[in-house]
């Protein structure tokens, strides 16, 4: 196994919230001494109860938050100490897909505009090649014919299409890893499958790795190489065998709460509890 591309070292993230009046401070450890390695090319699923710090963890990996304590490292160097070149490498290597595709695309930019800014910022193509470059990426996430999507605003796309655009945008920089915070939960059941398929296909084709955060245990079971279970700001269990052989109490509880998509079993589950 190669060295981890991203890793957390004893990271604690404390949110200080003030109430409206601005006095009594409240400290909350959203993450509490978490260590984690993410390897290139693997799919790591993070599951856990609501409010357990999953999104916080994602933000840290994406350098959207600074950790209160501990370090986030990219290829062994702390994010704080990255040199200019390393930082550019980091930004290209680590990309993100968010929960709500309509919220993660600027509602006032056409698809071509949204993606065009990235092309220009990172000099992915010259002015003549820009349209072609964008269309290529759109096509690679299954938006065909790509030309028909270029001039649309996000609200003229279906949820699934929006999420595809978001993925295409993330893929433009040829990242090594994509951090996806609940990429499925705001999508319809029928579309969730398509997006999962797409992610799988991308992984096969480009070797990109994923950190996927999700509530959908069934889906995670299907796609993940490794699973981390979070509970109250800590990773309580992590490994490849989590679904098959849960160790921690909370993991067991979580698995037990799944409703089987079969009436007989489901009813039985309700009756037992």
């Amino acid at each position, binding site marked *: 196994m190669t060295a981890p591309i991203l890793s957390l070292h004893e990271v604690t993230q404390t949110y200080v919230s003030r109430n409206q*009046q601005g006095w009594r401070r409240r400290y909350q450890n959203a993450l509490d001494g978490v260590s984690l390695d993410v390897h290139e090319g693997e799919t790591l699923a993070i599951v856990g109860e609501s409010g357990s710090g999953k999104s916080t963890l994602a933000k840290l990996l994406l350098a959207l938050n600074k950790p209160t304590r501990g370090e986030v490292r990219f290829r062994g160097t702390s994010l704080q100490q990255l040199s200019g070149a390393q930082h550019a490498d980091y930004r290209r290597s680590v990309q993100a897909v968010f929960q709500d595709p309509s919220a993660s695309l600027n509602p006032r930019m056409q698809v071509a505009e949204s993606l065009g800014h990235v092309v220009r910022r990172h000099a992915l193509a010259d002015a003549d090649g820009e349209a072609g470059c964008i269309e290529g990426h759109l096509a690679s996430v299954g938006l065909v014919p790509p030309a028909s999507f270029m001039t649309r605003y996000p609200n003229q796309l279906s949820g699934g299409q929006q999420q595809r655009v978001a993925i295409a945008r993330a893929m433009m920089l040829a990242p090594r890893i994509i951090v996806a915070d609940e990429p499925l939960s705001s999508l319809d059941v029928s579309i969730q499958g398509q997006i999962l398929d797409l992610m799988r296909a991308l992984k096969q084709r480009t070797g990109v790795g994923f950190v996927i955060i999700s509530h959908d245990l069934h889906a995670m079971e299907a796609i993940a190489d490794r699973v981390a279970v979070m509970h109250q700001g800590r990773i309580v269990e992590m490994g490849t065998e989590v679904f098959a052989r849960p160790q921690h109490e909370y993991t067991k509880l979580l698995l037990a709460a799944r409703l089987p998509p079969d009436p007989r079993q489901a009813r039985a589950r309700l009756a037992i509890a």
Partner: protein
Amino acid sequence: MLRFTIFRILHAVPLLVAVILAIFLMQQAIPGDPVQAMVGDFPVPPAFREAIEKKYRLNDPLPVRIGTYFNNLLHGDLGFSYHAQRPVLDMVLERAPRTILLAAAGFAVAIPLGMLIGVLTGTTRRRSMDQAGTTVTLILYAVPTFWLGQLLVILFALKLGWFPTQGMGPLLSQATGLQWVLERLHYLALPVAAFAIHDGMRVARIMRASVIDTLGQGYIVTARAKGLRRSAIIWRHIVRNSSLPLVTIAGYAIGSALGGAVLLETVFTWPGLGLLLIESIRTSDNLMVMGVVIFSALAVVTMNFVVDVLYALIDPRIRHQR
């Protein structure tokens, strides 16, 4: 609560210091000759100028004067107005209650009136009534307060003779008790009306928008699903939840009522802080101007504080969240 209060007071100190410095420097920039203002439109005899300037140390260097001012301020002294020949604090304390009375009476009418209109137009079943209500509201809102005041005086004081034309009470009155209160109300009627019409309509417009917003909230559906009567839904669920934006705006408006008071007090010769401010500016009575503005800054700060408290009272979420 105590800690909160202290915190807010400490918070306000830099603001006040900044206000004071700002005005001090501003007044420095405004040409003005307080001694000339005392004498009027005849030349000032040099002896008189010298006497006044020496006594009140008008020629001290600016930093010295600022230093003295802050030093006095620490001792609760707002300085001595050489123009009024009285301590500034005295004057401000004498005038402030009058402005507060006017503003309080104004808001006491404007806010309930505006809320009522806002709720009625916002929830009305009939489109025509909403339309008529909002139209009238907008038209009244658009009338400048001071002009409205003048029109009211012409109509209700001069033509109909119902109310006095100006002032805050009969000069020769010996009335006490209820009589006194009635007298005050009689004199308050027109200024309050002028004030309440403009500000009340503003409140009404905000309230209507807020009510309509509230109407879109889920809990109104719940309330309907419970089979509550219309009136119960309005009073129990809509009014309180729609008041929040109002609190912010009303708080800001009350805090900065001094600006409006300048006009209103001018129109009705209401001898409050607004008139004092104008008069002091025009006579370059710098310390008095400072006093009035400090008072108004305090009012703003206080009202911000009250708004926060009210917020928490109206919306229990605020106490704990964030």
